[in-house]
């Protein structure tokens, strides 16, 4: 089924392109929303990613799994957006005072996906990018430093601050 859709996309058939987009829309948005400031920005990143997918799908080896290939494209597109918007950020606005956080597993398990996304979007883009790349995608600090154009130390520092801020946000939301 997926192979047929991909072949259709390779022939630039619009129906197949829509089918592929629809099929992986939720998956793609689940990634882009974690990197974006808003849903609109998440859609923008997703659509830019699919433009690259449709442009390069002729070179895609259909013997290989599609989902990891799409994931890599989406993450790199999100990083492109991060670089593009880097100059206009006010990082200091995102600093949140650290407080102790109640780590009640039962309460935490009741948090929805949407709430998690909302909390992540409260982070600064720099913290959010490092947190996503390290915690969710599993990149090492060396790889993150290379991708984001920062030092390894900055990557570690940003991760630490991201986690502290998330704890504060969580605590605030759970109170």
């Amino acid at each position, binding site marked *: 089924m997926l192979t047929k859709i991909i072949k259709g996309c390779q022939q*630039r058939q*619009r129906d197949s*392109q*829509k089918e592929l*987009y*629809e099929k992986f*829309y*939720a*998956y793609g*948005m*689940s990634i882009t*929303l*974690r990197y974006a400031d808003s849903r609109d920005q998440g*859609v923008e990143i*997703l*659509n830019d990613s*699919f*433009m*690259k997918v*449709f*442009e*390069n799908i002729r*070179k*895609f*080896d259909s013997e290989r799994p599609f989902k990891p*290939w799409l994931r*890599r*494209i989406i*993450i*790199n*597109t999100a990083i*492109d957006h991060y670089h593009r918007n880097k100059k206009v950020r006010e990082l200091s606005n995102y600093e949140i005072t650290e407080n102790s956080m109640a*780590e009640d*597993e039962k309460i*935490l398990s009741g*948090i*929805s*996906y949407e709430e*998690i996304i909302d909390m*992540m979007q409260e982070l600064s883009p720099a913290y959010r990018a490092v*947190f996503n790349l390290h*915690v*969710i*995608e*599993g*990149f*090492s600090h060396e*790889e993150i430093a290379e991708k984001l154009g920062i030092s390894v130390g900055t990557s570690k520092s940003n991760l630490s601050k991201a*986690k502290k801020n*998330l*704890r504060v946000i*969580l605590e605030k939301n759970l109170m």
Partner: protein
Amino acid sequence: MADNKHNHDSIERLFLEKSEAYHIPFREEDWLKLEKKLDVRDAQRIYRQRVRWIAAASLLLISLLGYLTFENRMIINDLRDQIAEMSDTGSAPQLDPQPDPEPDEVSPGTDPMTDPEEDFQPGIEPGAGIDPDANDIVDGIRPDEMIPPSLEEHYSEIIEGLQDPGDVIADRAPPPLAEEIPRLPGGIVGDDDHETETGAMQITYREIPDPADRAISGIKRFGDEGQDPAYPYIRQPDISSLVSAHKTSEPEPTVSLPAISEEGLAVLEDPRTSRFAAGIMMSPDFSTVGSVSNFYDPGYKIGVSLEYSITARLAISTGIVYSNVRYAAGGDAYGPPPELEQGIPFNDMTGECRLLDIPISLKYQVLNFDRSRIFATAGISSYFMLNERYEFRFSGYENYPEPDQVSYWEEQTGTSHWLSNAGFSVGYERDLDRHWSLRAEPFVRVPVNEVGWANVRLFSMGSFLSINYRM
């Protein structure tokens, strides 16, 4: 992507688990946004394809036209040769050679007498009555240089003896030769077969079209009594027979040459006969590497040219052309220095290079018309790189950069690539006036050597439009 093996604390575990528990409904409006972008990109792609097809079709059409006209020219030449052979063997020609669509214009810088094709005139049987010695004259020696001074002295006498050597023959039935061409001093007499005999001397007369009536040139044959020869011709003694008479008669005949070559000499004295021409030219540039199918955005060429006419048809030209070349290449067609690759193969790349193109080429005029001509060129170009900019994309390999990973390289390289590309073109030139002309010249450049920092085999095509000035 690295394995997610590091130890997670509670906050990391929470976000890791929750991030997979997504449920995001599809929104049609998001697809419509993407569809708009896809439509724009498809339109751009179709436009680029059309431009390529039109360029290729134009090139093919012009090449075909050039070939067909050349082929037609060869057939005409064959017919003329056949007629000449038949005349030599004494049999009357059965075929009337097909004249050119338009009379050839004598090109600058060349004695028209050296070109057998341009020497062809209606009413004159090719080769008829031509003494082999007379070819010496035709081969470029001025008639007045050929004739001994003693003959020069008698030339005026002969001309005076002719009742009217410049008579225009415009009537269907010319007047009797006895009236038209009286007995000449020395006993030379004209007859109805256009020959005059007296003793050992024999002069052949021939009729040439009146230069004042250009329309006749190459269209009608003199002597077609049954036709409508209502075209003026001038009767003149044939050079060869005069020379032959001069050589064979004893004592020396007091015969000199009429001004049969004046027209050709006049051309040599024309300001247009300068052998140098200069021009300004520009063209779109469609370049690709590795193959001739993967074109990218068009670039452009703009430059100046200098041309020197070696003969009427052959010229050598050079110039300097500033080129902006844009191309796309797959990783297999691309060979940058190894330090850039670091073991990572590229998926594809795009390049934009600014360079100077110094071509040297030979130009041959395939066909000459009244005020225009078709020509073909072949030559070789040297490329001098000014600036090179490349954009690399990677994809398809584990642990390698991602499909949309892009890196750039740009430098003012300044490298020289001598005789790196062969060039071919077919063109059409039209005169605006005596000095200025316009040219359209579709061209292709095929690689002889690799060029640039990327060591690519660069194919280019386009069509020069130029304005030229003959000095």
